């Protein structure tokens, strides 16, 4: 079993939430993995794809396939980016058999972080400790495209000192949706405020999710509403000691 993993941190983590990437690396190293970061990585192409620019998305996707060609495992702190690669790259390369083949070889090695821990590393207790009351937000792509629901909760259950309180709207979309958040800004805002109501009802101090784009949306709204609730990526919780 290869113990070397590559991080695809995602552009949003790279530029805005670097601590998430570091946390992910910490957890993996503590489990005995050798972690590398192919430095030519940039983005999965999702912003262009979701906005209808398939040609531009294809260019970026091709770059991704090149960069990660030789990685044994590609670990990603995001359900939506993982979904883009595993479910939608295919749509971009229907006329490119070589790229399709490269994709076929690469896709099975692509893992969303929590799934990697549970299904490949086969651990649910990473020895974390965090005294806090949290609630968990089910990111849409992770939930509906990968069936990720119990996994993160199992991981959180083993974090010493942590209390998890379920919010009633855990599965409701936070309203980010990529360019939706700015093209339909008012609706996006209304959606996230509904989420905030649900969060506040739990009395939790921290909102946890496995997707930084959701956390950015939720934190942005929490900040605007001046609510004393913070957000943490699952990786950050699991790296806490």
């Amino acid at each position, binding site marked *: 079993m290869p113990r070397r993993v590559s991080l695809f*941190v995602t*552009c949003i983590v*790279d*530029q*805005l*939430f*670097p601590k998430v*990437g*570091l946390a992910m*690396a910490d957890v993996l190293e503590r489990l005995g993995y050798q972690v590398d*970061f192919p*430095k030519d*990585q*940039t983005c999965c*192409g999702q*912003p*262009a794809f*979701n*906005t*209808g*620019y*398939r040609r*531009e*998305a294809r*260019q*970026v996707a*091709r*770059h991704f396939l090149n960069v990660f060609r030789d990685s044994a495992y590609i670990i990603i702190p995001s359900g939506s980016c993982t979904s883009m690669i595993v479910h*939608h790259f295919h*749509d971009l390369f229907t006329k490119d058999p070589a790229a399709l083949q490269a994709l076929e070889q690469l896709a099975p090695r692509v893992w969303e972080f929590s799934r990697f821990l549970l299904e490949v590393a086969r651990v649910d207790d990473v020895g974390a400790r965090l005294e806090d009351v949290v609630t968990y937000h089910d990111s*849409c792509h992770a*939930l*509906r*495209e990968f069936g990720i629901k119990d996994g993160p909760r199992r991981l959180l259950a083993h974090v010493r000192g942590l209390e998890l309180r379920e919010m009633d709207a855990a*599965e*409701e*979309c936070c*309203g*980010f949706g*990529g*360019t*939706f*958040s*700015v*093209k*339909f*800004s*008012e*609706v*996006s*805002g*209304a*959606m996230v405020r*509904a989420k905030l109501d649900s969060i506040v009802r739990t009395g939790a101090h921290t909102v946890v999710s496995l997707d930084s784009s959701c956390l*950015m*949306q939720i*934190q*942005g*709204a929490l*900040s605007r509403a001046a609510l004393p609730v913070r957000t943490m990526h699952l990786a950050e919780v699991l790296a806490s000691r």
Partner: protein
Amino acid sequence: MSADFDDKIHNTLANPNLQLAIYSATGRLIDHRRHAVTREALPDYQELRTQANALKRHVIENLDHYLEQFEANVLAHGGKVVYCKDGAEVADFILSLAKERGAELIVKSKSMTTEEIDLNERLHHHRLESVETDLGEYILQLARQRPYHIVAPALHLTRYDVGDLFARTLGVANETLPEKQTLIARSVLRRKFLAADIGISGANFLVADSGAVVLVENEGNARLTTSAPNIHIAVAGIEKLIPRAQDLAVFLKLLGRSATGQALTVYTSFLSGPRRESEIDGPQEFYVVLLDNGRTKLLADRAKRQSLYCIRCGACLNHCPVYRKIGGHSFPWVYSGPIGAIITPQFLGVKHEPSLPFASSLCGACAEVCPVKIDIPQVLLDLRAEVKKTELREGTGWLERLAFRLWAWVMCHPRVYELAGMMAAAMAPAENGGWLRRVPPGMNLPPVRAWLDQRDLPPAPPHSFRDLWRKR
């Protein structure tokens, strides 16, 4: 988006009563459905969905065969089939039949297909009175409004709205109790049922091996519409076909539960032809109008023809976080919610409302609950690509395209990407680590402003991940 779409959305969001009405009505339907499809209530729910999808795929891909089989069976049971390419032909048919029979009054049961072709308006224009008999639709007809939701058409109206409406249009006292309002409508409509010359219905399903029309309802108005008048006309899109009566064991189990959480609606009618010789009552003339109105266009697109599998349960509307905020009237056509978002551009062209396929966060809640497993998010993505291709062809939207071209180029050149990241970070420094309330200087772009309109912006950290990784 068009100013019209934008205004409607804004007005709906700004109306707290409407927000509450939409949220609670859909919330109730969500709960009802959930209880009806648990492992205890319906252990083979997922299997049924798979079967329903397979049946619909089969029928749609062999639609000509099943249309002909359906037609032959309708004829064999004494009915007639009329193929219409559009709403005008449907109206022409009904008008000429009405004229031949000296008909003056029509009663109608709920049919989105007839809304789609504005049938009542077309008939009204020729002085033929056509009365909606489903309570919600009757209310809307009096109020001259479109349905707000497939299953709960008048969810946006309060009892006070209804009281005022009845007082104004029917000349009755202003009653505000729903029970009393229902009795008023019942009594008015009963007279219409018994006097009507023609009953027009839609069809939830058309059964090919039986030449039958299947109608589901809770009130009894569809039964009355199709049993009291001497002529019954069912108007249905060609995509409503299912192969066999026995397939109803799959579809009926999914429809009621997905729509309202009911194992079966109060009435399910399986109607094949005019009354038989030995039967005592029922219509003596039976017509099924098979409508194209653009369905053949959707049929031609292999990837998107799954949009025609829809059995109009409304579950996607109920679960859509966007619909639950913007409501049915924000949508540009009679079909709203996720299904409306995918079929409107296909029927009316992507240019009718180019931003419609983008009015979704692609959360996938719709696909999760669709009883026939339409992959709505996938169709939305395909439509988005189509919109951009159209813009390319027509030379519009070039600024955004340019931005994405530039973006793609940067993303394919890692060193440029790193430099761009550093420059952007320099423009959006953290204010004591706090998130930004205002547009940072040098970043006054529409997306940044749109973001800040609703929430704060994350500050750029002093070092990117790759910087920190290098230093590790």
